[in-house]
């Protein structure tokens, strides 16, 4: 119930899920970060920053314009979360973090 019409309310709640998903992936990255040694932390920092930048930009676009995402994009994000959960080595975490930034940045 906002200026965005009722027809787009599905999109709206999907956008909320999308943001929640992206934020929780960032949480996972911070979890990996907290459990890393200083070498890995150093390497993760700029990538986490990049993902946070893109998340800020995505939230800003939602704030300004309303619905942004499609079901497909939400699914992509969910699968990314799984890949961070299961990442066995540092390299896959880095790749997943870069992917998160890229997905979020796709709305630019």
């Amino acid at each position, binding site marked *: 119930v906002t200026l965005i*019409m009722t027809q787009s309310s599905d999109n709206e709640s999907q956008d909320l899920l999308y943001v929640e998903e992206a934020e929780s992936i960032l949480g996972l990255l911070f979890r990996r970060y907290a459990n890393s040694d200083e*070498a890995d932390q150093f390497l993760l*920092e700029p990538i986490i920053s990049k993902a946070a930048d893109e998340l800020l930009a995505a939230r800003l676009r939602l704030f300004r314009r309303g619905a942004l995402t499609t079901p497909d994009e939400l699914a992509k994000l969910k699968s990314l979360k799984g890949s961070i959960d299961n990442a066995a080595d540092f390299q896959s975490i880095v790749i997943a973090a870069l992917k998160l930034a890229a997905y979020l940045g796709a709305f630019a």
Partner: protein
Amino acid sequence: MPARPYEATISGLDLKRLIKYALAIGMTATLAGCTSEKAEALLTSVKAFAASSSAAIDSYESLFQDYRNIGFGSPDQKFNGAYAAIAKYGVTDLTSDYNNAVRSISALKSFESGNAEARSSFDEIRASYSLLADSYASLPQGSLLGAKYVPCGQLAVSKLTQQLVNFANDIDKKPLYPVEARKSYEAFVALASQGKKELAKQKFDDFYSKIHDYEIKHTEAKRKTIIAVEQGRRLYTLLGSYNSVTLSNLLGVVDSGFMLANSLRGVNLLAASNQLASVQREMDGSDAWKRIKELPLGSISSCPINLK
């Protein structure tokens, strides 16, 4: 990206076009019912609405800026990390990437491309509110906007008011708890699982204060929004019956801001949200507001539109 059926925001450009149109007609219109005192009072109310809207938008901007700020330690920690990374992995694409290193250092300061985007977005939003105030600036002198066409401004006021309600709703549905709160929380979890109670306590305190500080700022943004929305609502009503409104009606818009500011002092986040929700219910329950809500901005610029 899916096409959005309706734009939720009013861009400065659209508003400019709308106001130009209103002015052009206004100049050739009669000045019936538009005394200069009333025009002066109208201008004052519009300015009050623009100023309180701008104050509300400032506080949202500050929430967005805080959302992204992540601190990643001191220069010494940076050196130790960079050194340890090369010692651990050798010289690789990742460990010796110059751009990564720059990015890593610059994250120490609150610069960042995301924040620059935030700043320019908010400048644009604020511009549409000050444009509204500016467009009435010449009314007392020459009554450029004939009384008959004041309702065109009414449409702009309503769109700008609803936009404020939208902003508040957006942040309510998904609060902008700073990303850094997650960092503190995850650090707490890691330390607690290692049984390091003292260090874990520090991180938990960080986490606690970040959430708490955020909620204070969020509540403040809500209070400011309620004030601006209330002024916008009154202005909207008065613009619709400009010929018959009195000076004190118009100045009541300004007063309502002061009175609300007083009565809202000490109101908590939940109460502020409830107040805004009731405003929204009222808007949703009114046919006129509903019709405006459904009008795309493009059709508003073909003023005059019959709202009745």
